[in-house]
C-alpha cells in the first residue's frame, strides 16, 4: 500500500470538507474492495475519508412497506434486521450471503452500490426493487444510477446517504457463485409487485454490469411461475466471457437462477 491519510468524518458536511481538502481523495465505506486494491498498489488515493461512523448514514427504517436503509449500514445489519425481514426477507437473504462474516461486518450497502462491481449482489436488488439512491445532493432512480462496469451516476464528491424502496409482494435472489471468489457468476433478483409488475435484475453476467432482462420480466409478468422462464431465450451476445465462464453458460445460468428465484420467492 502506498502512503495515504485516513480521516474519519462525523457528519456528511465534514466528509465533504475533508474530500474537498484532499488532492486525490476517496470515500471509504467498508473498504472491502478499495483496501485490497490499495494493498495491491492498484489504487493510490492521497486521502481516505471514512463515512462509516456518520450517524445520519446509519440504520434501517421501515414504515409500512417503505424501506430506507442508511448507506453506512453493514451487510450484517441488513441480513439480521427483523423489521426488514418481516416485509422484504429477500434483501436480508442477499445480504447474508455476501462474502464471508468478516466482509459482512465491514462492508456497507452504500459502499457496494457506489463501487458497482459487475458481480456485486446489491445492484441487482436495487434494479429489481426499483430503488431510489439518495445522495447528499439528489435522488437517483436505480435504473439511472448504474451506468457501467464500476461506473455510476455519482458526481465528483457526491455521497450516497441511503437507499429507498417499497417492499414488493414477492421477491427472491439466487446466485451461482464463482468457485474462486464466490462473487456472483450470475445472480438474479426477481421482484413482483401487487399490480403484477415484475422486475428482474441480473448481476455477474453482463458485459457492462448489472441489467434488467425484459424478456424474463415479460414472461413472468404474464405468468409468475418458475416454468414461465423455460422457453425464454437469454441472449448471450451481451453477456460476459471470462476466465471462469462463457457468455453462453452465463446465459443458461441467468435463466436457471431466475427460475429458482421465482420458486424461492
Amino acid at each position, binding site marked *: 500500500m502506498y502512503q495515504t491519510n485516513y480521516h474519519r468524518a462525523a457528519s456528511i458536511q465534514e466528509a465533504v470538507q475533508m474530500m474537498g481538502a484532499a488532492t486525490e481523495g476517496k470515500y471509504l465505506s467498508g473498504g472491502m474492495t478499495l483496501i485490497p486494491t490499495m494493498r495491491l*498498489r492498484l489504487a493510490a488515493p492521497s486521502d481516505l475519508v471514512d463515512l462509516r461512523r456518520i450517524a445520519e448514514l446509519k440504520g434501517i427504517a421501515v414504515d409500512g412497506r417503505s424501506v430506507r436503509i442508511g448507506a453506512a449500514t453493514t451487510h450484517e445489519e441488513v441480513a439480521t434486521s427483523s423489521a426488514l425481514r418481516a416485509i422484504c426477507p429477500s434483501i436480508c437473504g442477499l445480504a447474508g450471503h455476501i462474502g464471508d462474516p468478516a466482509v459482512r461486518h465491514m462492508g456497507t450497502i452504500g459502499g457496494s452500490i457506489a463501487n458497482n462491481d459487475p458481480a456485486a449482489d446489491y445492484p441487482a436488488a436495487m434494479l429489481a426493487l426499483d430503488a431510489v439512491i439518495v445522495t447528499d445532493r439528489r435522488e437517483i432512480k436505480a435504473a439511472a444510477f448504474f451506468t457501467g462496469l464500476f461506473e455510476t451516476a455519482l458526481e465528483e464528491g457526491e455521497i450516497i446517504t441511503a437507499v429507498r424502496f417499497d417492499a414488493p409482494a414477492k421477491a427472491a435472489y439466487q446466485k451461482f457463485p464463482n468457485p474462486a471468489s464466490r*462473487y456472483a457468476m450470475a445472480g438474479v433478483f426477481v421482484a413482483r409487485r401487487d399490480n403484477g409488475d415484475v422486475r428482474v435484475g441480473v448481476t455477474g453476467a453482463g458485459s457492462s454490469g448489472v441489467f434488467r432482462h425484459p424478456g424474463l420480466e415479460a414472461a413472468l409478468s404474464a405468468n409468475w411461475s418458475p416454468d414461465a422462464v423455460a422457453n425464454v431465450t437469454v441472449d448471450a451476445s451481451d453477456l460476459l466471457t471470462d476466465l*471462469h465462464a462463457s457468455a453462453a453458460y452465463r446465459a443458461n445460468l441467468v435463466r436457471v437462477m431466475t427460475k429458482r428465484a421465482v420458486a424461492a420467492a
Partner: protein
Amino acid sequence: MGVDGIGARVARKEDRRFLTGKGRYTDDMSVPGMKYAVFVRSPHAHATIAGIDATAARAMPGVIDVLDGRQLLADGIGNLICGWMIHSKDGSPMKMGAWRPLADKTVRYVGDAVAIVVADSVAEARDAAEAVVVDYDPLPAVTDPVQALADGQPQLHPEASNNLVFDWELGDGAAVDRALAAAAHVTELKIFNNRLSPNPMEPRATLGIYDAGDEHYTCYTTSQNPHLARLVMSAFYNVAPENKLRVIAPDVGGGFGSKIYIYPEEIVCLWASKRTGVPVKWTSDRTEAFLTDAHGRDHVSTVKMAFDAGNRITALKVDTIANLGAYMSLFSSCVPTYLYATLLSGQYDIPAIHANVRTVYTNTVPVDAYRGAGRPEATYLLERTMETAARELGLSPAELRRTNFIRSFPHQTPVIMNYDAGDYEASLNAAMAAADWNGFAARKAEAEGRGMKRGIGMSCYIEACGLAPSAAVGSLGAGVGLWESAEVKVNMVGTIEVMTGSHSHGQGHETTFAQLVADRLGLPIDSINIVHGDTDKVQMGMGTYGSRSGAVGMSAVAKALDKVEAKAKKIAAHLMEADESDIVIEDGVLKVAGTDKSVPWFQMALAAYTAHNLPPGLEPGLKESAFYDPANFTFPAGCYICEVEVDPETGRTKVVQFVAADDFGNIINPMIVEGQVHGGIAQGIGQALLEGVRYDDSGQLLTASYLDYAMPRADDLPSFVVSTSNTPCPNNPLGVKGCGEAGAIGSPPALINAITDAIGNNQLTMPATAEKVWAAAQAAN
C-alpha cells in the same frame, strides 16, 4: 502398545504451539540491524534486458542498496541447477538452460527476478523497486507445452532446440506394439493433467545473515530439507562453503513439495547480506507465491491399453508431454520420468508397458514436484483408462480391476518397480462395503426424482514412497543419496532428544517420532523432544518429501535406538551384575528378566554420564547416531470411491460421499494418518473440481490471486469415510509405508470417474468446472 506408543491416537504435541500463535516461522525471525528485501520482477514472459538503471531507486528514502544480476554474476554466484540427470533415448543428456538467480540478460517468465532492493522497511523497498528502471526488449512467448515443441515457436534456451529438454522412454516398445496389434480390445484416451499452484498456508520467506567476523552465513528459510539446501547452495551456487553456512528451517507452514527446492531468493538474500553488510529478510506476498512458487502437474498424454478376450490387460502404451516451465527446477526432471512412468503398472499385472515422455520449456514458472509428484499423473491416467475400458467392455469397474489385480508378491513390473507387499482386493472390498456400492442404484433413482444426476466412480491407486535406495536412484540419475540420518541423545537424567534430518511442516513428526521412542523405551512422551530443521543442531539429513519421513526418517531413528538400547543394557547389566542379554526395557525401567532386579531409565542414564561405575572399556555418555538407507521403495495402495450429484441445469457437482480404504502398512498414529488422508483428498478434489493455473498466450498469469484461482473450501467437501488395512512393509524396521500423498494421488480419478458416470459422457477434463460438466451433460443428451 503404551498410551503414547505406536498405534496410539496421541494428540499432536506441536499443536499447542501452533494453535496459540506461538509458532516461530521464518518471517517471525528478527535479528539486530535486519533490513527488508523486495525483488524487482519481470512483467514480461520473455524479454531481453537491455539495461537496468537503479540510480533513482538508490536515492529513495530508506534504501540501503539495489543489486542486480550483473553484480551477482561478477561475484561468482552460480546457476540454479536440476539435481537429477535424465538422458534422452538417443543417449544425449537433458538440455539444462542457465537459470540465473537474478536474470542478467534474458527473462523467461512473468516473475523472473532481475534485482533486489534492500531498505529499512518493506514499504520503502517496494517504493524503490517500482523506481528501478529495467529496459526490456520483449520477445514472443509460448506457454502451451504442445505448441512449444512445434517448429517456429519462441525458443527459451539455446541448448534446447524446439524447447525439448529431453525425449525419454521406459519399457519395451516393440512388445507393447505387438500386444496392441494382437489385442481383442484397445481403449484409447487423451488425458490432460491440469497445472496446479501449491498454495501452502505460509508463503515462502528467507532471512540471510552474513557475519563478517567469522565469514559465516546463516540462512533462515521455508524449507522442507535444510541440509539439502545447504548442500546445493554450497556445492553449486557458490554462496559459501558448507562449514560456513548454517541453514535453519524453523516452523514451516506447509510445503506440498514447493519448499523442497532452493529458489533464487535464498541465494540472493545471503549474497545481498554480505554485499550490504546487513541481515536481509524477504517474505513472499501471495501474488509472488502464485507467480514464483514451483507449480505442479501440467501433462498432456495419450494412452492405449490393450486387452485380451478374457479382459486381461496385455499392454499399456503412453505418450506424455510434460511442461517444465522456463527453467529446470531442482527435481523437475525426475517427476515426469522415474516418479511417473515407473508407476504406470498401477495395481495391475501388465506384461508390457512403454512410456515416452518429452519435457518442454515454456514461458511459465518452473514446474516441479507437488504432493504426489508424478504418481498422481500416473494414477489419473491409469484409473481413467481402466474406468473407460470397463464401460467399453460392458464390465463393472470393480470386475475389470479384480480381473487384473496383482495377487502375488514380490511382483516385478515391466517398469522398474518391484512391489514388496499388498492386498489390493482387500482395499477394494473394504471401500465398496463402506461406500455401500450395492445400494448405489437405489440412491441414483432417488436422486433422479429430485432432478439430480448421481454417479459413482472408483480409483485403485498405488504409489511409491520412502524415496529410496541411494544406489538405485543414483543409477537412475539422482545427484544425491536418499538415506536419512538420526541421532538419539539421552540426557544425563534420562530425557531424550532426537535429532532427525526429516523436517516437519505439518506432518506431526514431533509427535509420531516421539511415539516411536516412547514405545521402545516406555518413557512418557513429554520427556522426548524431536529436534529438526537446523543444520547446526542436526548432524545430517535429506529432508521430507515423497512420504519418506516415516519409512526412512523414522527407520533411522529406530536404528539409532537399537544402538542406544544396546549400550543402555550394557550399563544396566553392569549396575545389576547381570548378563546384558537378560536385560529387558519396559515402562522406563531396565529389568533383569525373570527377577525383581531393575534399574530405572534415569538412573542408568545418570550412570552413563557420571561414569563412576561403567563396564570396563565402555565410553561414558549415551548418544548414538545412525544412517538408514532403504532397501526398496515402499508401496502404499488403496481404493477410493467417490459419489457425486450433478445438477444438470448448472453442471454444479456436489461430492456427496468419499470413501478411502488405504493400506499404509503399520500405522504410528491413526489420527495423524487420517488427517494426512483428509488433507490429501481435499487437494485431490481441488485438482479435480476447482484448481487450474491459467496463463494467457502472452504468458501473463491469469490466476494470480484467490479471486481467480479456486481452492477447495470446507463446503466443497463431504465428511470423508476413511479406513485402513495393513500389509506391513517388509523392507523397513517399522513396517510403515507412508501416507502423506495418497489422498492427492488416489482421489482425482475417482471423482472424474463419478462425474462422467453421472452425466453419461466420458469426455471431461480437470478441473471439472460447472460449465464443463454442464456442457458435457448437454452433449450427452
